[in-house]
């Protein structure tokens, strides 16, 4: 099974300092946490600490899909 992320502008956080927190909507930024800032970041709003490259995972795609389902 292969799928591509829906948006190249959004990264889910499978990078060095981000991990999923409430799949698929929120990720946890350990850099912010280490700096004692609010570490929970929405994948839609982005995070200034993100390594801005497309991560190979399903978070954004799943979040968009679930958001679409919610609207209906």
């Amino acid at each position: 099974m292969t799928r591509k992320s829906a948006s190249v502008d959004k990264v889910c956080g499978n990078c060095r300092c981000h991990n999923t927190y409430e799949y698929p909507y929120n990720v946890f930024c350990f850099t912010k946490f280490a700096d004692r800032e609010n570490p929970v970041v929405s994948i839609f709003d982005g995070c200034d600490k993100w390594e801005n490259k497309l991560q190979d995972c399903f978070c954004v795609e799943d979040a968009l899909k679930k958001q679409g389902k919610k609207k209906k």
Partner: protein
Amino acid sequence: MEREDLLRTPVTHMQIKSDMTVNQLVQQFRNSGSFAAGRLASACDVFENMVRDQECTIFLALAGAMVPAGLRLTIADLIRRRMIDALVSTGANMVHDLIEALGGHHYQGHWLVDDYLLYKYHIYRIYDIFVPEEDFVKADEKLIKMFDEIAGENEGKKLSTNELMHEIGKRLKDPNSIVRSAYEANVPIFLPAMRDSEFAFIYSIHLERTKKEKAVTIDAFKEVPELLDITRQSERLGMVVLGGGVPRNSVQHAALMSGKGLDYAVVITTDRPEPGGLSGSTIEETVSWGKVKHNANKIMVINDALMAFPIVIAAVLERLGEGFHRKGNP
């Protein structure tokens, strides 16, 4: 030795009945006396002897993913009953206990799976167990905050892994947790390879959040005299090993350093002695070092500990009966 000495006990064929108890099944294993069945029956006898010996301090050495796989409550119960007097574990097993204590779960998965698909869904695999990444992250978040708090309360003090586990246990509410039950029963938990686990990541973020001089300080060697105090104060020593590795040798080495050696040993592992690693080393090999007494009550079971250990526990609990009480040592 005469020829007839070698032919004294015939194999009695196992008779399996629909209403058998676990101990009755183990007695049938004893009647066979062969292969893993015979060894498992002997392991029940050795563990029963260990538990009935009120002057014996019982160590559980825990390695391999026993807690994620479902032994968490079994171990917590044994601690409460003081059928374990000291736990020596990998850091990872305690991390997985804490993941559940802090709201996370482990899931039944499969060993035949596309691991890259799991990666893309943020799911970690331990053979056929799945752990969601967010359960790790939420536990990390809470544990890092606990580390911050513990550091604040213990400024200038160096903690052993046992003291750190005690502090964490104090802060938990989950009665099914190993760390919590050890705190309540005053049973020490030693993590001789603690940094080889998620605790390393937890510590590194705690260090970033806290000024270095204010961070919690763990002294890896502080547990050595703590372990030695236990072995020296104990009349007799017993160990149950699930897996092996660093936890097994930490117990054996403490027994050696106290000049005593172990009186009882049950080792359940699938590892083999030929490659020379400690986990697969036979108990006889351990006798050569003086870590286990030559006349110790001992048995090694080559089996999956996740299956063998609950059978041993169930059979021995049945033999002991409801009224049995163990005071705990040392």
